[in-house]
């Protein structure tokens, strides 16, 4: 969505006391990221319009909370992001995502390349805090080249958007409501093997967590040498999502 909130023209705003220059029409998050500044996020991706669902990027804009990905940058804004209060809030949101699904990092092929895991480290998350939901989400291994493990889905809808807007295939959709909201596959059998998805699709590599994984490439890069093993998710060289 195009930010329209007073974002006419370029200018400068203050992020945690330091000036950030923005271009016309840019959101707070996009402009901060371009300037090499880190605002935690999961559902936002530079190639796609803002989604606003994960709420990790909620900052205080002139004292009022709002999602940095959906609010247009405007000259003179005072924005707080890297504060104890907001980071504690982000940690709770991460803990909510961890207990909602089934996340076992030690056995996950995405470990070290996972935006959820890396952000949790960055926010000093040491445990789940809340009671686990342990949902029953069978994996879908029907596709010859791609594994779907719904246990790790955080409902960022990046795969839905990539398949619809880039690949033109509409392989994924969101179904249900409330805590039962879940990702579904578009085919008569509801299984990925019956879709025209290929491993070369944008949707096949967009997942920030370990739901959509290419088969037969397990641990080709050893644990310890992966993207977020080398540098933290907050490092500007590390912010390009996969």
């Amino acid at each position, binding site marked *: *969505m195009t930010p*329209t*909130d007073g974002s006419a023209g370029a200018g400068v705003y203050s992020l945690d006391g330091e000036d950030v220059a923005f271009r016309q029409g840019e959101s707070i998050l996009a402009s901060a990221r371009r300037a090499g500044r880190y605002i935690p996020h999961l559902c936002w991706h530079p190639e796609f319009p*803002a989604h*606003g*669902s*994960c*709420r*990790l990027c*909620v900052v205080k804009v002139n004292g009022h*909370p709002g*999602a940095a990905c*959906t609010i247009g940058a405007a000259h003179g804004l005072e924005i707080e992001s890297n504060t104890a209060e907001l980071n504690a*809030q982000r940690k*709770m*949101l991460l803990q*909510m*995502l961890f*207990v*909602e699904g089934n996340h076992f990092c030690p056995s996950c092929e995405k470990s070290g390349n996972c935006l959820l895991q890396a952000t949790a480290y960055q926010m000093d998350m040491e445990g789940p805090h*809340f*009671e686990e*939901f342990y949902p029953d989400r069978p994996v879908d291994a029907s596709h010859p080249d791609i594994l779907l493990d719904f246990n790790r889905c*955080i*409902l960022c809808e990046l795969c839905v958007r990539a398949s619809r807007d880039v690949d033109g295939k*509409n392989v*994924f*959709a*969101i*179904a*249900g*409501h*409330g*805590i*039962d*909201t879940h990702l*579904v*596959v*578009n*085919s*008569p059998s*509801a299984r990925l093997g019956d879709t025209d998805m290929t491993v070369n699709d944008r949707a096949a590599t967009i997942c920030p967590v370990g739901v959509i994984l290419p088969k037969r490439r397990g641990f080709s890069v050893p644990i310890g040498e992966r993207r977020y093993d080398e540098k933290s998710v907050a490092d500007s060289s590390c912010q390009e999502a996969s």
Partner: protein
Amino acid sequence: MISVSSPGAEQRPDAEQRPGAEQRPGADQEPGADQEPGADQNRSQKSDVDALLAHYGRDPRSLVQILRVLQEQGLPWLPRETLREVAAQLDLTLAQVEGIASFYHFLHTRPVGQYHVLFSDNITDRMLGSEALLAELCRLLAVRPGQVRGDGRVSVDRCSCTGLCDQGPALLVNHRYGMTRLDAARIGEIAALIEALVPVSEWPTEWFHIADNIQRADVLLGTPQQPGFAIAAALSRGAEAQLAELKRSNLRGRGGAGFATGLKWELCRNAPGAAHYVVCNADEGEPGTFKDRVLLSRYADMLFEGMTIAALVVGARRGLVYLRGEYRYLLEPLRATLDRRRQQGLLGTAIQGHAEFDFDIDIHVGAGAYICGEESALIESLEGKRGTPRIRPPFPVEHGYLGQPTTVNNVETLCAVVPIALSGGAWWASIGTAKSTGTKIHAVSGDCDRPGLYEYPFGTRIGRILEDCGAHDTQAVQIGGPSGICISAFEFGRRIAFEDVPTAGALMIFDRSRDMFDVARNFANFFAHESCGFCTPCRVGTALVVKRMGKLAAGHGSRHDIEVLFELDKLMHGATHCGLGASACNPLRDTIAKFRPAYERHLQSLHFEPAFDLDAELSAARLAIGRDRPAGQ
């Protein structure tokens, strides 16, 4: 009748002629709606879906209506094959259609019974014994709540508040028939009729009587309905002068937020767009609220008159009423009123002879989703999508229905436009307080002698309302529904006004016999049930609150659990995508702050307690091995 039944499936017993309501030819009425039952047993599913889709112009934006009507006229649920057919013809994917169907509580992608009975599960229904009646009906019919009986005959479940709180306990049958004032005798009769396979349309008509219960009328409920008078007054003033009159009245939105109606209309009027729309928010989902039901039942002319004046001011040619699915039984009477107004020259082309003034109104029936009361979610639903709130800005006044400037107003707000058009903005502004002008209708329910509608000028003392409705020994009043505010006895001197205690209209009364923890828990379940699931804090947070409240209710609570509830409240206030999540912990926060002993009665200890009960988990194993002493003894 549209049949989408798979071979051999039984027809639902009430899927026959829709009652009354002469229809505008070729207009609102769905094809086949007036056929005799059974006439289409042999027609193929495809041709029936075809006919309905043709009626809606194969427009994906009508998807929610298409699915609702398919389910109403065929099987009581939507088999995957039907969804596949709909998807193919609307150029949507099956997953998209499934995603939309599974969003709405009243659309069923899994089987429900031929008789689908939904008990209203507001706290006021529970206080009147709904849970015992539900259990009794399930016992008589040998069915478990939430499950379909083996023969497919019946299913019994709960639903969010049906807006019948002044005459509960209430239930809905097949989403079309509302029943009030239930008791054990009536439950027995219902069970017998279901066992005898008597169509619901042949059940005694007095069972479906829904009372208005207007206990106190003021300038709004007391305005005589004279169709066309207010439109004539507005037309003689002209659009700009009518807008000025509305701004002079200081009317503020009655849906709860209190945005200035005149300013909203002005923003919409001035926003560029190929078309402008007037939308009436009749998705009265806030538990305990039922004022709009009565306005829609008895004051529909006033509502449509107000919408027509709105159209004049903002320059709209089309209006939409988003009628909540729980009020499906109002559809035919509302359509009949629209037809009469067309015949009276009050809708359609050249209204009251003004060549440039064309406007008409359609009714969109919701499908059980509280979130669609949020105006941008409502617009998404009108466009046939999942009712997820949009990113705002842009706001609907600039970018609303179909991306065009749209004013979304509450039923009561649009009704109030009529007396303002007739008597002037200054007159309206002289009623109430400076910041909250005019009157407000309160839907009063719970522990009182005379529940129903009470209209008072803004600024009325809460204690006055309690005296008038015959409330005794009152412990607390929940004002504005679960997302509103809980008022305890020492605050009954406070006044109803945007600047003191704002309200969308619900006023639920709890006497001293009630456990306020039970009240808060019922509300917590409501928010979790109605969360759209889009954003993390609301989707997971509302479910976590339910878990914690369940832990307290089961006697495993400790002070730590209350701290966690406070944490969740704080998070959801600042981090959610829309107001549902932001207000979901309001009743929790208020009741913990004001009725803490009610919580502490449920605490096992003041220190940490696990939710896991080791003794309970081991009890089966102990029984098996003949050890009867709990662990550790």
